[in-house]
């Protein structure tokens, strides 16, 4: 039976995100994007002047809403816990590299699903790449990969990230002249502020209660045959599919898809890299935002890694565009794999497992 606690809640969350993404798109957000955590963090990096790619600069209220919504939900449900101290710098690096993977594909798993639901077959090529990256992450986790335990911290630490988002909202509403806003390109396509903020608040609160994630569904299915989170992922896809059909945004094919390129190899590899990174940091970018809002300062550092990764991706010409993936971006994905595999092997306790096996045999 569906109840609004377990599968029911996670399904409702997925359906809501899918539906709101289409609504936001209908009210002005970029096509086949609606809501994309990676793209919107990239826009925020631009809005703050961390990169100077003029078409992708905007302080996206959706992101602020997600964090504040999740924060309120966590405080009300007494699940706010300030935690930290679990390999923050390594998480920063994994967030940074994973973001380069996202920007080579052009989207996080949320946008991948939204693109899939709009008939963009390039995203269907990225999905097996994403799953392969997650499977590689599981391979490391099964070999004892760990970023270590977080410890309980004074609540003050946990409040910093939500407060930062609150400040960002104030700057946005007050029209602070230091912020940068695109006048053309995806960054200039904006749903009305209150709608975007409201949608973010709803998504953040629901995702916090449901523990929604878009790495978890595939990971848990492979590792534990546990379909719990998959209900949310399928729900998101189905709601977005129905929404796209209703607003006439379904267009099956590879060519001429909005804010997408057709280079299958790099769509696959970009998402594989991101899937690996975000499996090792234990959750997709949305989950990192929500977890940071719940007081997890390690997740907050991961989000900062994503922001800085976005800035580097645009400052150094790594990010893809509808024209394709630039050579620098291709090099960065390969280099990213080298670094992440090195981290994976370095932090896996393969020897411990070997020792256990010897003991069992003895």
């Amino acid at each position: 039976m569906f109840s609004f606690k377990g599968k029911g809640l996670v399904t409702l969350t997925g359906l809501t995100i899918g539906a709101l993404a289409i609504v936001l798109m209908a009210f002005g957000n970029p096509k086949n994007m609606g809501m994309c955590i990676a793209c919107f963090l990239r826009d925020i990096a631009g809005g703050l002047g961390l990169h100077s790619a003029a078409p992708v600069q905007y302080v996206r209220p959706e992101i602020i809403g997600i964090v504040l919504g999740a924060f309120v939900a966590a405080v009300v449900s007494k699940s706010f816990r300030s935690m930290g101290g679990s390999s923050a710098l390594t998480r920063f690096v994994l967030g940074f590299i994973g973001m380069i993977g996202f920007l080579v594909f052009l989207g996080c798993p949320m946008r991948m699903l939204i693109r899939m639901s709009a008939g963009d077959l390039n995203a269907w090529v990225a999905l097996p790449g994403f799953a392969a990256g997650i499977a590689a992450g599981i391979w490391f986790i099964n070999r004892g990969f760990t970023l270590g335990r977080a410890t309980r911290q004074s609540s003050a630490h946990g409040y910093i990230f939500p407060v930062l988002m609150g400040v960002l909202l104030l700057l946005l509403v007050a029209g602070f002249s230091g912020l940068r806003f695109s006048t053309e390109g995806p960054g200039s396509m904006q749903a009305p502020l209150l709608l975007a903020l409201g949608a973010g608040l709803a998504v953040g609160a629901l995702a916090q209660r449901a523990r929604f994630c878009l790495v978890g569904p595939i990971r848990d299915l492979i590792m534990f045959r546990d379909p719990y989170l998959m209900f949310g992922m399928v729900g998101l896809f189905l709601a977005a599919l129905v929404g796209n059909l209703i607003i006439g945004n379904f267009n099956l094919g590879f060519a001429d898809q909005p804010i997408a390129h057709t280079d299958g190899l790099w769509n696959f590899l970009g998402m594989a890299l991101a899937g690996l990174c975000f499996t090792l940091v234990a959750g997709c970018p949305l989950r990192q935002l929500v977890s940071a809002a719940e007081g997890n300062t390690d997740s907050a550092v991961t989000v900062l890694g994503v922001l800085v990764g976005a800035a580097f991706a645009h400052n150094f010409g790594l990010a893809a565009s509808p024209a394709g993936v630039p050579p620098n971006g291709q090099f960065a994905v390969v280099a990213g794999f080298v670094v992440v595999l090195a981290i994976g092997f370095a932090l896996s306790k393969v020897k411990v497992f070997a020792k256990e096996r010897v003991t069992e045999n003895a």
Partner: protein
Amino acid sequence: MREVDVDVCGLVCPEPVLLVKKALEAKTQGTVTVLADSEAARENIKRLATGKGWTVKVEEQGEQWLLTLTK
């Protein structure tokens, strides 16, 4: 602090579930106690254990939960 078989405090998914799964596979029956400090870990462990036919008792201990799994 009471001794527990598996302490998953401060760990994020999927590590808590993985550790408990190993403990349940090693013990197959009897009682396994788990200390968790996040809702996600608590719920995921409950789902894993009930799925494997263990009964789960949850006691709140301040900001942590003691899960007693029996079979």
